[in-house]
Each structure stands twice: as C-alpha cells, then as structure tokens.
C-alpha cells in the first residue's frame, strides 16, 4: 500500500437518482477494499426535484417514451425513499462481500453541491456516470487520470498507480497542455515516474481541460474509471455536472 492510499479516510459513493449508480458503487467498494478505507454511501435527495414536483403544473417527460405525464411531490418522495433503501441494501451487500466498513446517509441538497459540502479532505468521492455505460466490466478496462502537473495531480497519480497495480489495469494519463512541447515535457516526467513502478501507462494529449474533451478521451480509450483531482474552492459545480453527464464510467474525485 502506498502512502497516498494509507492516508485516505473514506471512499464516498454518491447515490443519485441515476441508473448508473451500481457502476459507482462497484468502483467505490473495490477502491475501499484496496486502500483500505471506510465506504460511505451518500444518497442525495435533490431539493430542486422536490420543489419542481410541488409546483401545480409539474409534468415529467419520459426518458425513453417521451410521454408527458403529471408528477407530484409525493411521487418524488416515494421514489427517493425507494431508491435510498435500494442504495443502502446494495451498499451493505457490496461492503459485506468485500469485508469493508460502511455507513449510509441520505441527505437533501442540490446535486454535487451537497456532496462537496459533506465530503472532507482526503476523501475519495465516487460519482456515478451520467452517460452511456460501457458493457464491459470496469475491471478489464484502463484507468484514466487527469494530470496537470500540480501536487494534487501527483497525489492522484499515486492513488491511480495503487489501484492499477491491484487490478492489473493500465493507466491512461490525460495531459491538458496548450502546445506539443508542454505535453512532451509532462510526458517525459510521467514516463520517468512510471519507469520505477509496476504499472504500464500511456499519455494522451488534451488540448483543453474541458469536460467534453475529457469525456471524449475517456470514451476513446475505454477507461473504466476517471480519477479527477480538484483542489479549487469553491468547486465548479457546472463543470462537474457536465463531466458526470458525459462520462461512460464512474468519476473518482481525489481531494
């Protein structure tokens, strides 16, 4: 176990009303088992949805059927309760299977903003993908890491290396760089860093650090997990919203 791994206190898996939460839970449970760390489930009851459902004209358009149907606050509340219970059971089963400590909490808030308020430094936050999930299990796919040369990025690299070693996956390091020479310089550093470790990896040049570019690179390289470091305060909730919406895999936020 690396030093970075030993420092992690919790792996927080975020449950939203997304069908891809199972993917996030699997990734989070595996992370918690490998670190090891406490596995904390966080179910977000979206306040905006509850308010919307309480409005007199509230309607919902089916995601698949495109049928318009009325929706009421009690529908949303009931759905939240059911989802929270399902999430708790799934978390319990996953934790029992991997023999990790766990806890579960349902909170009311607005999306990732609520998550950021509730997570602490040294937590790994695992968020379910919003995009189309790849059919193959994440374990068989490479691990993507966003790397910008910052200290937080190196921490993310250490966490990524530890996870890749445990799962046998390769690393795909996404390097945002304005030009080729900057990318080459970062790559040299990374190659030297990887040379002393038992993981294989490759560097991918991103011309900008946008959610769209990152999501595209993750898709193109079939990554099973994206490690994203962010020490900004406050965090850009919209960026995360776009990121989560476009990713085909779980997002691991390294704080």
């Amino acid at each position, binding site marked *: 176990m690396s030093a970075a791994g030993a420092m992690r206190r919790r792996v927080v898996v975020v449950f939203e*009303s997304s069908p891809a939460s199972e993917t996030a839970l699997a990734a989070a449970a595996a992370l918690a088992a490998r670190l090891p760390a406490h596995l904390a489930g966080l179910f977000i009851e*979206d*306040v*905006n*949805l509850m*308010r*919307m*459902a*309480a*409005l*007199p*004209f*509230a*309607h*919902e*358009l*089916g*995601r*698949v059927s*495109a049928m*318009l149907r009325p*929706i009421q606050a009690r529908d*949303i509340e009931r*759905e939240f309760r059911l*989802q929270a219970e399902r999430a708790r059971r799934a978390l319990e089963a996953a934790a029992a299977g991997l023999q990790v400590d766990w806890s579960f909490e349902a909170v009311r808030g*607005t999306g990732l903003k609520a998550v950021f308020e509730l997570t602490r430094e040294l937590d790994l936050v695992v968020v379910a993908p919003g*995009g*189309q999930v*790849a059919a*193959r*299990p994440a*374990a*068989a796919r490479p691990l993507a890491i966003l790397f910008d040369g910052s200290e937080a990025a190196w921490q993310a690299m250490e966490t990524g290396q530890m996870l890749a070693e445990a799962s046998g996956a390769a690393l795909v390091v996404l390097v945002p760089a304005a030009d080729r020479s900057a990318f080459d310089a970062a790559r040299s550093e990374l190659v030297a860093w990887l040379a002393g470790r038992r993981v294989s990896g490759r560097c991918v040049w991103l011309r900008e650090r946008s959610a*769209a570019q990152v*999501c*595209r690179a993750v*898709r*193109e*390289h*079939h990554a099973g997990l994206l490690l994203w470091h962010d020490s900004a305060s406050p965090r850009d909730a919209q960026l995360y919203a*776009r990121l989560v*919406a*476009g990713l*085909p895999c779980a997002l691991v936020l390294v704080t």
Partner: protein
Amino acid sequence: MNIESKNLAPLPADALYRRCDPAGLAFEDTSKLEDLTQLIGQDRAGAAMEFAIGIGRDGFNLFVMGPPGSGKHSLVQDFLARQPVGREPPGDWAYVNNFADPHKPIALALPAGRAAALKHDMQQLVDELRTAIPAMFESDEYRARAGQIEADFTERHERAFTELGAEAEKEKVALLRTPAGFSFAPVKDGEVISPEDYAALPDEEKERIARVIKALQQKLEGIIREVMRLRKEQREQLKQLNREMTLFAVGTHMTDLKERYAGLERVHAFLDAVQQDVIDNAEDFVRAREAQSGGMPQQEAPSFRRYQVNVLVEHGTDSGPPVVVEEHPTYQNLVGRVEHIPQYGTLVTDFNLVKPGALHRSNGGYLLIDALKLVTQPFSWEALKRAISTRQIRIESLGEVYGLMSTVSLAPEPIPLEAKVVLFGDRLVYYLLHAYDPDFPKLFKVAADFEDRIDRTPEHDALFARLVATMARGRGLVPFERDAVARVIEHSARLAGDAKKLSANIRAIGDLMSDADLWARQAGRARAGAADVEHAIEAQRKRSDRMRSVMHEAILRGTVLIDSGGEQVGQVNGLSVLQLGDHAFGAPTRITATTRLGDGRVIDVQREVELGGAIHSKGVLILSAFLAARFSFKRPHSLAASLVFEQTYGLVEGDSASLAELCALLSSLAEAPIKQSYAVTGSVNQLGEVQAIGGVNEKIEGFFDVCNARGLTGGQGVIIPAANIDDLMLRADVIAAARAGRFQVYAVTSVDEAVELLTGVAAGAPDASGAYPPQTINGRVAARMRELSVLRQKLGARDAGRNDRRVRRRG
C-alpha cells in the same frame, strides 16, 4: 419245398465303419498345415454369397441359413474379409450444427480419415478465436473506433440537452432530470422556486412560464425522439464495427480451412455458416474470456459446442469395406440414437449427442445380424427394412414417435445407406419370414443355404485337416497328429450320420478338439493323438449319457422288458432313437402284435391313445394295406390286429418301426416265433420293400449295449435296411464284436428277408396262381387269412338268416 430260411450273411465288419486312412493325410501334425481360408463343400452357399456381394442392386441382401454350429458367422465374416478392396474405401460421416434450424443437425460426408481432421480443425479454430476475438476487441484500433462512435453519440445528444438547458436558462427555467425522465421548472438564483414563491408570482409571469415550459417540452420531446434514433444508429454502427472486426479475425482462419477442404461443398457451406454465427455472436468469445478470468461469477460461460464436429463414423484411408457384426440388434443399436443430458432439471440434447448405430458403422460395407435376435427385438426388424428400402438411415427417437417423451429431441438429417445386410438364421426362420412378411423376399433376394453335411472325399478330408489346424491355432490348442485328425474326420462322419459325408457342425468339432486338447495336456503331450480324440469322444458321450444309462439299467434289471434271447410269437425288438439336446442314443423297445377275426383293421394302440404321431400312424396303415394286398386280394380282409409299443409312455413318432411291426404281425398270423436275439429297424412300404431310416448307428449301439451287458452269444444282431449301409459309422466295440463274430448286423431289402432272419422260416414266394407254399411264413399267413375270411363269411350268413327270420315273424 425248402422252408428253411436262406442264409442271409451279416455285413462284414469293414462295412460297419468307414475309416479315414491316416496315410492319406500328408502331414505329421496340424502345425505344418496352412490356415483354411475357404469354405469346404459349401459351393452353393459360396456362390450365393459371391452373387449377393457382387450385385449392386437394391434388395440383393443376403440371408445365410443352415444348421446351428455350422460356423456360418465366422465363415461369412472370413469370406467378406477376403473380398478384394475393389472400390474406394467408405467415407466418414459427421453431424454438425444446423445454424438455421438446430433441431435438424446436418450430416456431412467426408473422404475416409477426414472427419476426425475436421473435428480437430474446428476445435483448434474455436481455441484460436477465443483468443483472437477478445484480443481484437481489446485492440487500440477497435477501441478507438468504438470510442469514436460512442463519443459522437454522446456529444450529439448532450449537445442537444445542453442547448435546450441553455435556452431554458435564458427563460429562467431549469431542465431537471427526474428518476424516469425530464422536467422543467422555473428557477431563481439557480434553484427551483418554491410553490409559495410561484403562487406569489403575477399571473402574466405564470402564463409566460407555462408557455415557455410547454414550448420547451415540445422541443425536449423532439430531442428524446432524436436521441432514440441516434442510439439506434449508434448501435447499428457498433454492430457493423463488430462484424467488420470479427470478420477480419475469423476470415483468415476460414480461408485456410476452406483450402484444406477444397472440393467439399457441404463442408464449405458449414464453414460459411460457422463464420456468420461467429460474427453474429462475437460477444460470446469476449464473455467466455471474461468468465475464464473470473469476471462473470453469476453467469454461465458461453458454450461453443455448436461449432464442434460430431464424428459419427470414421475409417482409415487404407481400410476395406467395414464388416460389422451386431450381436444385440436393438432399435437404438441398429439405427443410432439421440442421447440427452440433464440440465437444470430437464433433459436437453444437441447434435453432439447423436450416436451412431450398426447401420452407420457398416455403411459402405456389410452388416451381419442374427435374424432371430433381430425379429425378437421390438421395432428393430421394421427399422432395418425401412432403412434398406429407403436406403437411408434416419434416427428417430422411439419415445418421441410414440409420445412417451415430451423432452426436446432432434431430427438429424438422414444419411444415405450403402450397406449389404447379411442375416443369419435357421431355415425355419427364413421360410417363416418368406411366408409371412411380404417385404422379406423383396429385401433379401439371395439365400445362402449352408449344407448340413458335405461329401467325404479325399480332397475334403485334406481341407478338413486344414480346418482342424486352423481351429487348433485359433483356439490355442496343441497341434493334432495325423491319426488324431483322421479320428476327428471319422467322428465328423459319425455326426453326419453318414459314412460318406462329413458334418458341417464345426462347433461340435471344435468342442471335441478342445476336449482332446485337455486330455493331451493332462497326459503331458505336446500334440493330441488319436487316443486323446477317442478319449474326448468317450468323455463327451459319458457326460451326456445319464438318460441312456437310466434306460439301460431299467432294461437290465427287467423293469423294462426286453428279451435278447429265446423266441416269442408276435413279439419283436424294435429300435428307437431318443434325441436329448445334442445327444442322441438308441434303445430297444418291445413291439407286440395280436391278431383275430375282424373287419380288416389294424389297431395302432399308440394312435388310439393319442401317443402316436402322424408318420407312425401312416406306417401302421401301410401294414394294413400290405396285408390286404398280399393275402386278401380275392376275399374279404377279415383280420383284426393290435400293435403295441410296450412300456412306452410318451409320443412315438416316425415309421422306422414299421418293419418290426409287420414282422410281429406276420409272426402272430403265422404263429411263427421270432428270435428275440435280434432287433429290427426299418420302414416298409405297402409292397413289402424295406426303406432307409435315421439314427441307424445309435439304434444298433443301443441293442448292442443291452446284449453286451447280458453277454454276447454270437447269435445276436440287428436287422437294418440295406439302404442304410452307407450310414454305418459304429463304435469301435461294436465293430470288434462283429469282427469276432459275436454280434451281427444284417441288411435287408424286403420284409421277407427280415422275417426269414427273425423266424428262421422261409418267407415263401407265390407260385403262378399266387399261392404260397403252405409251410412258409407267407403260406401260413395266407392260410390263416383264408380261415378268418371263411369264418367271417359263415358268421355273416348266419347273421343274415337270423335277420330274415326276424323279419318274417314280424310280417
């Protein structure tokens, strides 16, 4: 007039046995002889077999009939094995999956030796694809192209949602994702307004919000429909990509395989179908890889059984036509079967579980079956006929046909049948099938009828010696010396019941040789000699001699009354043969006759109590006809006679006692005593001629044993038909006694000769007027018959007078 009998000479001792002269056998022992590879004296059967094998037309299958133990099976097998390989070796057959209709597996014909190769090639193909296809899906090229397709889709639909979200935001409305879809709501400071705040809004604002949301909903509906279309498009693109990449992975292998099986169109078609199925189900190979690496604990690993080749029949390239013997011709053993395996509590099957039957294995060659076994197995005979007449082997589950099983079964493609079927059986089976099954003559047009006996010629003796050599080697017996072989040949003639024939019962000869081998080994000899064969014959006789001993003892103790000396009127020793299993023995039977006035009937007591068979009754009626024709042709036949087989309690059949019965009758009529030191056998016709009978050796030996046990007097003997002289192969002790003049065998041609021997009185020949000399047997019988006739006429006249008087009194 001479009333003494003519001196009919007994047969010389040399006539009682035809020896096989060892000097005529040009070898020291059988180890010097070559194996016999031909049929002895079975020219007719051999020609029939050659004909059946040579003719290639439908229905010319073969029925081999003949006595049991004649070695028909081994002879036919050897004969078939010796047939020159004049045609292409039969090909291989395999069943493969029918990808269009798995319920109907496809039969593939391949050149000899290629089916196993195809099976191996397909296994190797699957092994290679299990690596190649997942590797292809892991390749950078595939990932890049699949990622591109996925990214394009995501970008396009996300862009649509983002633009819609932005448009909504301008109108102070948020696009929200609900658990099952999307919704719109007015926002303030980035958060959805509460119902209270909404209620406080002016009506114009509420109307605006409602209008905006309605418009946005319509746009969202359009976007969702577009996303569905895009998703479908994306799936198609991915599918097409998978096809292209899989085709690349599988195509090279398929090209190699097709080159290897060039010219085999159906194999090519199968390979094409496999290729298409692999392309359509490429994901299975990926899942199999993941299952192998433990990635799919909850799911069953995909199976690739559908790509296997089930080799049904395979042959070597240098082998001739197969000769298959089916010892247990059940329906399934004959036409093959579809097996099932349990899976999740039910029975399932596939083409890999199709098993061949004897018809498959013999295809292109010969199938040998015992007819009786075949017809006694349910459905087998019908199945065989169906296969022959349709020239197809069709595997059908009986359970399914008769609705006994409701599980899924298969209907494998029928395989063309090109086999010659050889049935073995007794003649009775052949004639019964011929008479009662109209299909039989159409399907088995050739009968090879094995002789029960073969001519005993020097050539056949030599061949027989080689047969002995072959059997000795085949059974691991010691070699047989020349004398021993001669003794075996003599025994074979004895089994044939004819000194000029050899028995075709090879099994009995083999058993005798095994016996002789034992005695030779026990005596520490490396070769079996004539003494060992003699010992074996005697041992065999003793082993199955219990019943004969019991009867013999009963005679000697006087329980069964048989005289072997003295004279008696109307009493003669007949001879009968009892067959118990494969052992036959003879024994004397006392036959008595009584005569009196009557209406011309000879009463056969055996028939009256239903203990006489039809042939026996016929013999007795012939006697009546003989007596009437010879002695009563001018006057009414006024004799009543009774004939009895004394102390017999079972069925008496056959007419071999008719000579003895006639002699007893003549003795009774002539009141001429019969010498009880003789026994008689022979049938007689109504002219008084003596005809051949069966079992002459056993009969003579049966009476000899009784006389010998009581002490041979020199006056004892057996009277046999002259027509049976050639059948004589008597035991050595009988011949020795005959040679020493202590026991005689007489051969007669007429009842007159027999009765002269028995009574010592001349039979008498008629003069020109038809009258017999008065003191002769015939003269005395004629006188008695006249006397009875006169008496009957007198009685008839007296009765007629009484009747007239009665009539007149009444009148």
